């Protein structure tokens, strides 16, 4: 939204050309300037600049929705609001399971079972909706190379023996789990940025990143100056993209 070109904000052609001479081409550049600068750059009077500001703001402002509309939209499809973890007490505490449309973070000391939990969630996501799954593909971004496909099949076969009774079904399930091995922060960020198209093309219903901390700690030494800012930059940028993906497609991350 920020990078929206002024041309599409319904400003007149000559105004856009005039602004581009000052290197103001997107809504973001326009809104960052103060009133006086805007007057100088557009050559308009105070009231005209106010009107222009309104027009540009309307082009990028988010749409309004009341809380009631949001609730109605959610209640239309209650089953898709959560991914049940099949651990009943956990589901009860989480109010239904891992919520769709928001980020969930799993942390623990090493060896507690985070990766196992992630593998199990991947199996659950591929199950059909009637069995409590999401009937979709899974994107698994692995930074520690801890994902074991054999373990995946073992979990699936032992947990749901009636469903995965044939090899065919197991193969189908494994085909819908897409594994990406990324070993640096840069690659992880690039992968996250490219996820949007993959989600649509492969009908992805779950994104798992295992784990964020390992790759960040490897690369950024907090004792060095400047690294702290870069690290938080990377983390917040990744987080905002993931939040956007989670909300836009209503999937758990």
């Amino acid at each position, binding site marked *: 939204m920020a990078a929206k070109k002024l041309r599409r904000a319904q400003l007149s052609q000559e105004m856009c050309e005039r602004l581009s001479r000052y290197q103001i081409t997107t809504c973001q550049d326009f809104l960052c300037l103060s009133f006086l600068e805007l007057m100088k750059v557009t*050559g308009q009077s105070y009231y005209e600049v106010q009107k222009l500001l309104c027009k540009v703001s309307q082009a990028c402002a988010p749409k309004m929705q009341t809380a009631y509309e949001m609730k109605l939209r959610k209640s239309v499809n209650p089953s898709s609001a959560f991914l049940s973890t099949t651990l009943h007490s956990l589901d009860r505490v989480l109010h239904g399971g891992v919520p769709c449309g928001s980020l969930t973070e799993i942390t623990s000391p090493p060896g507690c079972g985070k990766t196992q939990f992630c593998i199990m969630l991947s199996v659950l996501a591929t199950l059909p909706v009637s069995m409590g799954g999401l009937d979709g593909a899974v994107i698994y971004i692995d930074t520690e190379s801890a994902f074991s496909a054999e373990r995946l099949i073992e979990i699936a076969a032992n947990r749901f023996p009636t469903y995965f009774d044939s090899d065919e079904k197991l193969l189908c399930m494994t085909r819908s789990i897409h594994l990406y091995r990324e070993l640096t922060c840069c690659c992880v960020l690039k992968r996250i940025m490219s996820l949007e198209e993959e989600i649509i093309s492969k009908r992805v219903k779950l994104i798992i990143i295992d784990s964020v901390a390992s790759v960040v700690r490897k690369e950024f030494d907090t004792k060095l100056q400047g690294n702290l800012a870069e690290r938080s930059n990377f983390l917040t940028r990744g987080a905002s993209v993931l939040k956007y993906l989670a909300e836009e497609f209503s999937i758990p991350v």
Partner: protein
Amino acid sequence: MQREVGTLPLAPALRARLAAAGFQTAQELLDTGPCGLSKEIGISREEALEALQVVRQECQGDAARTAGGSGATRKCTALELLEEEQTQGFIITFCSALDNILGGGVQLTKITEICGAPGVGKTQLCMQLAVDVQIPECFGGVAGEAVFIDTEGSFMVDRVVDIAAACVQHCHLIAEAQQEEDLRKALETFSLENILSHIYYFRCRDYTELLAQVYLLPEFLSEHSKVRLVVIDGIAFPFRHDFEDLSLRTRLLNGLAQQLIIIANDHKSAVVLTNQMTTRIGQSQSTLVPALGESWGHAATVRLILHWDNSQRLATLYKSPSQKESTIAYHITSHGFRDVQPPAVTHSTEGTELNPRKRPRTEEGKQ
């Protein structure tokens, strides 16, 4: 009338031409007339007419202001302010200890900032306030609507449903205990659907959308004149990453603060912002301070810092023009923001065992 040409809100090119032609005061412009003006500085007659209209408007505004006019002026005596402040309502938070240290609750026409570490309850408090602002006046509320601008995506509708249901039930209990007709009538409009439909939700993904939304807020508020609360949940989040130019960030934040102050005053609504905490690394130790820097600290009138002490949540009033600094403990239950224990002096109307304020104790025990 003696206003200098350079101070009029005309286009810069026009002002340059007027200065080059030798015009100095607004009176001179008005005396010349549109045709003379267009000939002297070489613009079309329509443009000259427009310019003169702007000048006339400005001079009239000036005259009204110097004569002590009404409406647009911001000048009044302290006595009028005192009367206004005493009749002003507060938005209660359902936690009486917090209301006490705030002096009655969140004040209208002021900017309140809530800072805290992640998970301490900032968004919960905002959602509680968005429901509480709609309490009808006969129950002690301000009967207004709420605008919720979300930058972090932590607004959960189900949670708001829980909080609103608890609030409605609380009011029902009061109405039953007091048995007054107008209370019951007010309750008919205070239902779950109404509460949810009067929370206007905007989801801003980055600071450009936030800036755009705040520019458009005054118009929105004039259309929805019953709005008494504007919540911006997460004002720090869009400004903390992707900003290489810190001076631009300061400038944008200051501009934002100014606009919010104007909105709070003009529309008599409370503005509540939530901020994150950042670590300030000193010589020997590091402390948690509110994010966005020192200059942002001047923007808010009232600052509330939420923090943990072992497993107890505390709220400290850090900055306030009228209340002293103090710390209280609070709980977040399934009904929302509540006291740690029920207040020692309860109202006679809330004496029943089904009082939701007393429920938290047993629920805490269960957990």
